[in-house]
Each structure stands twice: as C-alpha cells, then as structure tokens.
C-alpha cells in the first residue's frame, strides 16, 4: 500500500516534547461539551426586549480532556522563571513564591464581592491596610494610593495628584514635565494623559541625569520632574538630593519612577531622598507573578502635600473598624482627583504581595535588595572583560552592556539574544535603555544562586568569544534553532495584520497570503 512519508524529520511535524498544537477553533466539533450544566428552567416569556441573539455565536465546542491538553501543550511553548534563568533587565523576573498563590486562593479572601456590606469584608480591608502600612514604612512616605493597576497606571496617579495640587493652588499653568532621555516610554505617555508637555533632560557620560541641564530647564511652568531611581541604566542617581532640592525650590514636584525600588528596599527610604510621589510595582519588587504580561499593581506613595488628592477609594480607620471611602463627601475634607479604575484596586495582587512581605520581613527584604545588587555586580565583574560595560563603577540591581564588543563581527544584540535562547536562557533586555547603542540589560535578581550565575557567565563568555571569532555570524543569524518556532516575521505581521482566526482560514498559509 503506497503511503507517503518524509525521508527526514517526523511524520507528524512534532519533535518529541515539542508538539504542534492547532487553534481551539480548529479543534472543536459541534455538540461536544467541556462543562456539564443543568437544563435551564423553562421561561414563559423572556425579558430580553426582543434582543435575543439570532443564529450561532460561532464558538468551538471542546471536551475537557481536549481543553486540558491544549493549554498544557501551549504552556510547554513558554519560558518562565520556573523554567530557568530569566535575566530580563528592568523587569525583575524573580521567583514567585507559591505560598502567595495559596493565600490568594483562600475562599475567605478570593470569594468576596467588592460591594458586600463593609462589615462583612473587614479582613479584606485589613489586607489592604496592612500592605499600605508596609509600603509607607518601607518608603518613609505618609500616604499611599492603592488603586493603580500597574506601573504606568501608578505614574498617571502620581502625575494626576501633582496636577490636582497645582490646579488647587493657582499653579494650573505648570504644564511642563522634565523627563530624562533614558526614561521608560510610559513616563512621557503618562505625562501626556495629564495634559502635560514633555521636555527631555540629557544624561551625562556616566549614565546619570545631567543636573546642570535639569536646573537650566526648571522654571515656573514646570509641574514636576520624573526621574527613575535607580535609573534605567541600573545606576543610582548620586545627585538625587540636589535634584530634589532644586526641583522643590522651583515650586515643582519630584515624581520618582519606582520600577527599580527592588534594588534599595530596606536600605534607602525614598522619603529621605526628597521624593514627593513614587509608584511601586508589586509584580516586580514584591514578587507577584508577571503572568505572561499582567495583571500587576502599582500602588503610589504620596507626600503630605499630595496626599489629599489621592484617588478614590481608600481605606480609613473608623469607629467599629476599617472603612472604605468611596465618595468625595465621605473623604473628610480631602480632595481626591477622581477614580482610576473599577472597584478597590488589584486585591488579588495585594494578597500575594503581603504574603511575600510577611514571609521576608524587614530583615529578608533588606537581604533581598542586597543580594540583588550583589548578583548584578557579580555578573558585571565576570563579564566585563568580554562584553563592553556602558558605565564604570558598581551598578545596582542590573548591569548594562552595549554592543561595542560585537563591532565588526556581523552579530547584533538581537542575534546574541537569540543565541542565548538556544542555550536554554531567556535573553536579557535588548535595545533598552535607548541611551546606549545596542543595549544588553541584565537583571539577575536575588533569587538566583551563585551556581546559576556561574553557568550563565560561562555561556555568555562562550558566545562572546564565538561572536568575536569572526566566523560565526551566520550561526548567530540562524538562532534560535531549537525552539517551537524560529525567528518570526514581525514585518509581515504588522504589514498584513491577522489579529484573529476566521472561519475557513488556512492553518499554515494564512499569514503568507
């Protein structure tokens, strides 16, 4: 019986544990069920105002075993912290404790509705209040807005409080915001959402803010400065106190982007640096899972001046327990700038962060930031002779290299990163920050052992030597080879966007049409 089979490769296209997986829309078969539900009670006359859906929805029907296998196979195409070392600079990919997951799933915390009578959720309000207390203590700041849903949302929160303050003090003309060129893209985007204009500040050769340039730009139309500290190059802004002093003298506020707070927790309180407001990424500093890109949380600490403008809702201590303030009229004279999202903040993230903080304690948190800085400096020390560090001196929690070491090799930062994938590592952050050429930003975090770092160093050194041997450019260009998919055509994706499956779509050739 003549049957066709490939001479090389496999018949299925699978490669052992790498199993091809179709879309759910290609797996369904009408009439299957993944959930058994009772028959609905008969309704004499529906209350749908004549708006009953006509015809099929168009969703596929799958059984539970199909669904479980589908998502299990998809998970196997992902790299996570649980898989291996993930030195993605500025993202803080550290171990996510499973105790935090367990606590977040306690029915007494998970199965609560945000609009239950407040007396039935005193324990939940206590979680919010306890976490708020820790965040205030660790930063030395008097107030914290808990509702921001992410870092960028927290930036917006701090800037809105600043704008509200200025409006309230006859300073509404202050619309200019000074932002270093090395800032994350969310900083200018958040400023724009508050009706501010962005004025960039250059960096000095040592990777820090040019304080003289900053001072020259201060004026009575400046609402605030936005400075990331430690900054996006992984360096502590050594003139931070002078920056704060000059900013305040000009009648402006100091917004600190707290994305890198994990480097200094327990060793520096930002209040002592003159910061007026800062967001804290709970999904970085306090180890709540990144979840493939969210959800996170971005509580934002506020100084005494800005605290009255904190958004709704917030928890206060009242007679008979904790109370959630949901309206201006209940705010006791405060002037909240509004509401940032639905309900009471990212509560599930709060539970996880609090479980982490309580597990670590003040001693553990300080040791964590210390070890994070130690690990980054260890990588810096062990790689400096083969890669090209962008700046001298010790770094904080991440170390920055540029692509000078790849000069004339034909290998780019991107190629180098893709080669790391084949070696079993998630690449470092590439091409960010923008202030150095071909940036490679490595953040090892404190949860990696010395053995892991040593093994990684050997691989990076090997790759650097290989690149510089001059004969391996093609090899780098064709990496990765051992992943479920090799380099993907991003230009095609953007030029001919295919953003959803459609009935009749060809499984293999749709994108190439």
């Amino acid at each position, binding site marked *: 019986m003549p049957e066709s089979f490939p001479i090389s490769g496999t018949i299925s296209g699978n490669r052992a544990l790498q199993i091809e997986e179709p879309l759910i*829309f290609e797996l369904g078969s009408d009439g299957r069920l993944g959930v058994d539900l009772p028959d609905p009670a008969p309704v004499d006359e529906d209350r749908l105002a004549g708006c009953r859906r006509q015809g099929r929805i168009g*969703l596929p029907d799958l059984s539970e075993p199909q669904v479980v296998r589908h998502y299990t196979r998809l998970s196997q*195409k992902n790299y996570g912290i649980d898989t291996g070392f993930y030195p993605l600079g500025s993202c803080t990919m550290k171990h996510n404790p499973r105790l935090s997951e367990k606590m977040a799933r306690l029915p007494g915390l998970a199965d609560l509705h*945000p609009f239950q009578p407040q007396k039935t959720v005193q324990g939940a309000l206590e979680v919010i209040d306890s976490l708020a207390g820790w965040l205030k203590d660790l930063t030395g700041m008097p107030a914290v807005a808990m509702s921001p849903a992410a870092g960028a949302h927290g930036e917006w929160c701090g800037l809105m409080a600043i704008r509200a303050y200025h409006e309230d003090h006859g300073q509404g003309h202050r619309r200019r915001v000074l932002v270093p060129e090395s800032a994350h893209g969310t900083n200018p985007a958040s400023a724009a959402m508050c009706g501010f204009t962005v004025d960039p500040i250059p960096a000095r050769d040592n990777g820090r803010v040019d304080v003289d340039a900053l001072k020259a730009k201060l004026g009575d139309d400046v609402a605030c400065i936005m400075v990331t500290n430690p900054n996006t190059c992984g360096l502590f802004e050594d003139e931070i106190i002078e920056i704060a002093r000059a900013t305040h003298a000009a009648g402006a506020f100091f917004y600190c982007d707290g994305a890198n707070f994990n480097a200094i927790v327990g060793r520096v309180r930002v209040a002592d*640096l003159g910061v007026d407001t800062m967001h804290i990424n709970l999904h970085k500093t306090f180890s709540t899972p990144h979840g493939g890109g969210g959800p996170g949380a971005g509580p934002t600490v506020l100084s005494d001046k800005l605290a009255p403008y904190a958004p709704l809702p917030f928890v206060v201590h009242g007679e008979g327990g904790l109370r959630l303030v949901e309206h201006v009229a209940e705010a006791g004279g405060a002037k909240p700038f509004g509401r940032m999202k639905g309900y009471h903040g990212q509560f599930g993230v709060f*539970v996880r962060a609090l479980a982490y903080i309580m597990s670590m304690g003040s001693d553990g*948190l300080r040791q964590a930031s210390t070890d994070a800085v130690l690990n980054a400096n260890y990588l810096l020390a062990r790689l400096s002779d083969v890669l090209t560090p962008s700046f001298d001196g010790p770094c904080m929690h991440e170390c920055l290299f540029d692509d000078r070491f790849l000069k004339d090799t034909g290998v780019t930062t991107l190629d180098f990163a893709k080669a790391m994938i084949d070696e079993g590592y998630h690449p470092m952050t590439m091409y960010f920050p923008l202030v150095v050429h071909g940036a490679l930003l490595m953040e090892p975090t404190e949860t990696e052992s010395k053995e892991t770092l040593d093994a990684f160093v050997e691989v990076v050194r090997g790759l650097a030597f290989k690149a510089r041997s001059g004969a391996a450019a093609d090899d780098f260009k064709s990496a990765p080879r051992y992943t479920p998919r090799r380099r993907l055509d991003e230009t095609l994706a953007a030029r001919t966007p295919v953003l959803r499956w459609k009935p009749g779509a060809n499984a293999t050739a749709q994108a190439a049409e």
Partner: protein
Amino acid sequence: MRYLPHTDADRRHMLRAIGVADVDALFRDVPDSARLDKPLDLPRHQGEMEVERAFARMAMKNLSAGCAPFFIGAGVYRHHIPAAVDQLLTRGEFLTSYTPYQPEVSQGTLQYLFEFQTQVAILTGMDVANASMYDGATACAEAAVMACRVTKRRKVILSGSLHPHYRSTTETALQYTDMKTDLLAPDPMGMEDLIGRVDSQTACVIVQNPGFFGGIKDLTPLADACHADGALLVVAVADPVSLGLVAPPGAMGADIVVGEGQSLGVGLGFGGPGLGLFATRDRYVRQMPGRLAGQTADIDGKRGYVLTLSTREQHIRREKATSNICTNSGLCALAFTMHLTLLGETGLTRLAEINHANAVRLEQKLRRIKGARVLQRSYFNEFALYLGDEVDAAVVVDRLADKGVLGGVPAARFYPDYEELVPVLILAATETNSESDMDALVAAIEECL
C-alpha cells in the same frame, strides 16, 4: 530565608570576585544621609505556617460569597468556574513568564492571546479585539479617548445606564485634557433620551447593555443616530455571559465594545484584578490602545504569533502613543479564554439561559413582597428592585448581612446624592443561585422591611 539561595560563603566569594571588601561598597552612590545601616524596625521574616495563620485570621473576618445566599452583581458576577481553569492557570510556564517580547519562547502566551482576541471579537460581534486592558472601567475610558482621536472631536456622552465606576473612571481620565464629558443622570427606569443629545460635536456616546440597572435595549436606532452625526457608539458589557443570549453590540451597530471579563474564569476576588475587554472595527485598528497578538510565519514558513502594531504603543511613540498602557491582564485573559473554551457555543448558550431563567424566577418570587417591584421590564440576569416608599435599601442590605444573606447592592452606594435611588436595590441571579437561596433571600427581605 527560603527564597534566597546564597550562603554567607557564596556572598564572600562573590564580593572577592567583584573586588570589594563588603557589600556596602556597592551602594557607594547612595548619599550618606539616606543610608539605612540596619533593617527597619518592622516584623522579621516568618515561615509558611506563621504567614498562613495570619491570613487565615484575616480571611475569617470576612463573609465569603460561597457561605451565604448571594445576589450581588453590579459589574462583578459570581459564576461557577470549572476546576480545570485554575489548575491550568497555575502552570509555571504561564504564571511566571513575562510579556511575550521574545516570541520564539512565548508561543504559548501568544497563541492563547490570539485565541482570546478571536473569542472576544466573535462574542461581541466585532472585527477585532485587543489582548485585554486593566479592567472594564479603564477600557471604557480608553474607548472615550480613542473615539475622540478617531473623530477629532471632544465631547463624550456618558449614559445613565453606564456603570458608575466606568463613568467616574472616564471622567477622571478626561478631566485634564481638552476632551469633555456630558454626564447624564443615573437612569434606573431606562428612559433617558440619548439620541436627542447627539450632535455634530459628539465624539461618542457610551452606553451599557444590559444596563447597570438591568434594562436591555436595541441600540440600532442610537447607532444610526450617532453615525448620521459622525459620532461613534461605544457599548459596555458588564457580564459577557449575557452575550450567550443577548444580541451582541456588533449586531446593533457599535463601533467600539468594551467590557469586564471577570465573570468568565476570574472569580470575584474582591473586584480585582479583572480584565478589560476591548473590541472594534477593522478600520480603527491602528487607533486602538493596548497590546495585540498577531499571526505571522517563522523563517521555516510555519504559522506562529508575535506582538504586533506596536508603533501605536508607548515604548515606540512615547508621549504620542495611543495610551500609556504597558501591559495587559494576561493571566486573567488566560482564565477567561480557558473558561470560554470549556463552555464553547453549547455551554455558553446554556449558561446564559440558566442565568436568565434564574433571574426571571427570582423576580417572580420577589412579587410576594408588598410594595416591591422590578423597575424595568427587560433584564438579563440582574435588575433594579424598588423596595417601596420610605424604604432605605442600604438599611435592608445591612440587616440582610446580619442574617447571613448577601442580598444585592443598594443603588445609593453608587449615587448617594440621588434621593430617588434610596429605595432601590440592585440584585443579580446567576447559575450559582439555588431555589432555596432565592427563597431565603425573599423571606429575609420580608423580615427586614
């Protein structure tokens, strides 16, 4: 400490390799005046047992939904989540991965986002959906900004049927911009005239269907009126389970659909995190905020997925971006898509029918209460109940809680300034409500009046 692998010997060895005497040398750039020399005077580290005990104590102070006849909705709905959802969600490759910036090692995340986008587009009757936003309220605010960008107009009309948190979040988002909101009074009767307010300055009208007070409307005439004046219609959906039974906004002429995805897969979670749904027409894709997964091919020609159209986003466009959002609600989107995949066409349709039937059954039972009436003729799984003249719904809800019944939300909790809403109670019924739950609620309300 269990999360920190270094031994003291490791630390000493590493300091030697770095070439410094002690770790403080690495912090030399920190000004002396800001250095803390020892741990802050706060509680020290604890083992798992101690932490579990502390959380158990806090959890015990709450009355969880599963321990009470439970009828609260108002934007967050309690649906039964199949066991497989949470079991799969905790797989480390999903839980502990980052944004899929390196697509070769993120095909799992990218494929489920592509499937999620497709499901949301299908469900809402729209062409295309993004990979999710923070929640329904922020998605609504983003839709207002997008509509202004598309129409180059500045006026946003917010219906009285729209969730109050969506309204206030949108107002907050616009308050320091040149965009303005036209805020209608809360509309418990479903009587407001939106068509009469649309004019040539209007960027968009934002309505919710089914409305916050329950009512369902055919929005086609409103869509036509918007389009005649060059405005967009934005429709919010608070419980996507309703789309198993109610005609989708896309079929009624919506230009943007936003919604809260929490009711599928995510659970109550005290209201967060959730996930914002955001769908629109193909022609507006490049004006859309938020992350998008797209299909492409790898160098071997195999189908694969990447994040795409990122020139809309902040990391490229900075202050000119469509939004400052830098994330989505990835894990919640995964929960949503897994729950919806398990339900499928058949399951979602049946689930929606059960919800509607339970709400109808609850209304029938509530008729026993003298003086009480459901305010609108139409609803899906939630309605506003007028409890009677002189009745304060907040007092009733408080007394119900004393009896261990979580019996809805008083409308005045959202609108304390509207006297006429004092007697109004918002009640939701889902598949989780048994006949005896309903009887317990009705009996308890009668006792509390």
